[in-house]
């Protein structure tokens, strides 16, 4: 699990938000999955969330949809910065 945490521990860590994948949607609720663990969450705060999206899950609510293009960009930037430090 994330940070080696169990759901019990995640329960105690309120400011934590973890990326989970939406596997089905039913009104303002969605079934989500992370590392084989499924959980029903509210998507009332992210009405734009679609099937297959990753959302940031915080205390039972999706609080934001992960921007996959930006995630890719950040990884590219990280690789660039890390390799620059080797060349120069």
């Amino acid at each position, binding site marked *: 699990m994330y940070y080696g945490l169990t759901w019990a521990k995640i329960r105690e860590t*309120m400011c934590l*938000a973890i990326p989970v994948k939406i596997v089905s949607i039913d009104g303002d609720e969605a079934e989500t999955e992370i590392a084989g663990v499924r959980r029903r969450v509210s998507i009332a705060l992210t009405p734009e969330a679609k099937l297959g999206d990753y959302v940031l899950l915080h*205390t039972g609510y999706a*609080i934001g949809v992960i921007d996959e293009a930006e995630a890719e960009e950040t990884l590219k930037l990280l690789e660039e910065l890390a390799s620059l*430090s080797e060349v120069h």
Partner: protein
Amino acid sequence: MKFIDEYQDNKLAQGLARKIAKRSTKTIRLMEFCGGHTHAILRYGIRQLVPKTIELRSGPGCPVCVTATADLDKAIALAKLPGVAITTFGDMIRVPGSYSSLQKAKAEGADVRIVYSTIDAVEIAKANPGKSVIFIGIGFETTAPTIAASILKAQQEKIENFYVLSLNKLTPPVMKALLDSGEIKLDGIIGPGHVSVIIGSHPYEFIPRDYGVACVISGFEPLDILLCIDKLVEQIEKGEPKVEIAYPRGVKPEGNRKAWQLMEDVFEIDEANWRGIGIVPQSGLKIRRKYERFDADKAFSVSLKPPREPKGCRCGDVIRGAATPLECKLFRKVCTPERPVGPCMVSSEGACAAYYQYGTTENLQDF
């Protein structure tokens, strides 16, 4: 796990750390606002990765920690009222109040239940119509919309025995209070990632503009934090402080409008009482009049004795970033996670808990 594992790559982290070391010439102090960041920084050894000239200081971003003793006393007094069930996030129950704790009240027969979500609190109210179910509403902007959503749900479903004690707090006003006090000099702020998912980056604009302090919003994986530190160092070296987002997969400049909307519908901005800081104007959320039947402050009255702070505990100083846990005489000696004296040792986001959990006799001197 996607969006987690790839931001933990050790080789990239080493490369990024070298980049930071090359860029950095000045001795600087950065504050990580969020307790989640403090834990990640210590867990992943980020202090050991970056040059010693970059000091990382923990800030007030731990919702349990900043809850004032007087407010905690109120929650405990509410728990003792007949017919009341308290629902709360887990950490809260172990925090010592002036005279008791929610855990002690529970042991003495009060109905205190730990919930993971406000959704659970509403369900408990539904299942127990004979009880008044009060949710202890702590948290920053990350959590406040979920509390607003619970009040709207209770309204929609006509659940009349659900109440919220709103102790929610706002991030930018307390940053302003810390910067205004001038107690500790900061060069940059590691901005809270999940608060910013909700509020976006605009509310921080005053930090570089009015105080000349750099502000970069960060995610919570080690590479996210290193990228944030790199951007902060770059800004500080150039003498061009500004607000940047180093966590763009989660944070948009405009934030989450829907969450904002819910928050604004349910809450109005009011002053709030912060442990270690005191009353900060416009830094809290009060339930609006139109939803006042859900407001535990209006529905119940309790009489409270004057609050007493735990003797010798420096949680307040740690919250302001004025002291590190190591400067507290009680740390690791009297105050431990098993027998915490103050909330910074109780909360999974508290600085003292992080230092305790990840610090060893050898590495504590580097902290």
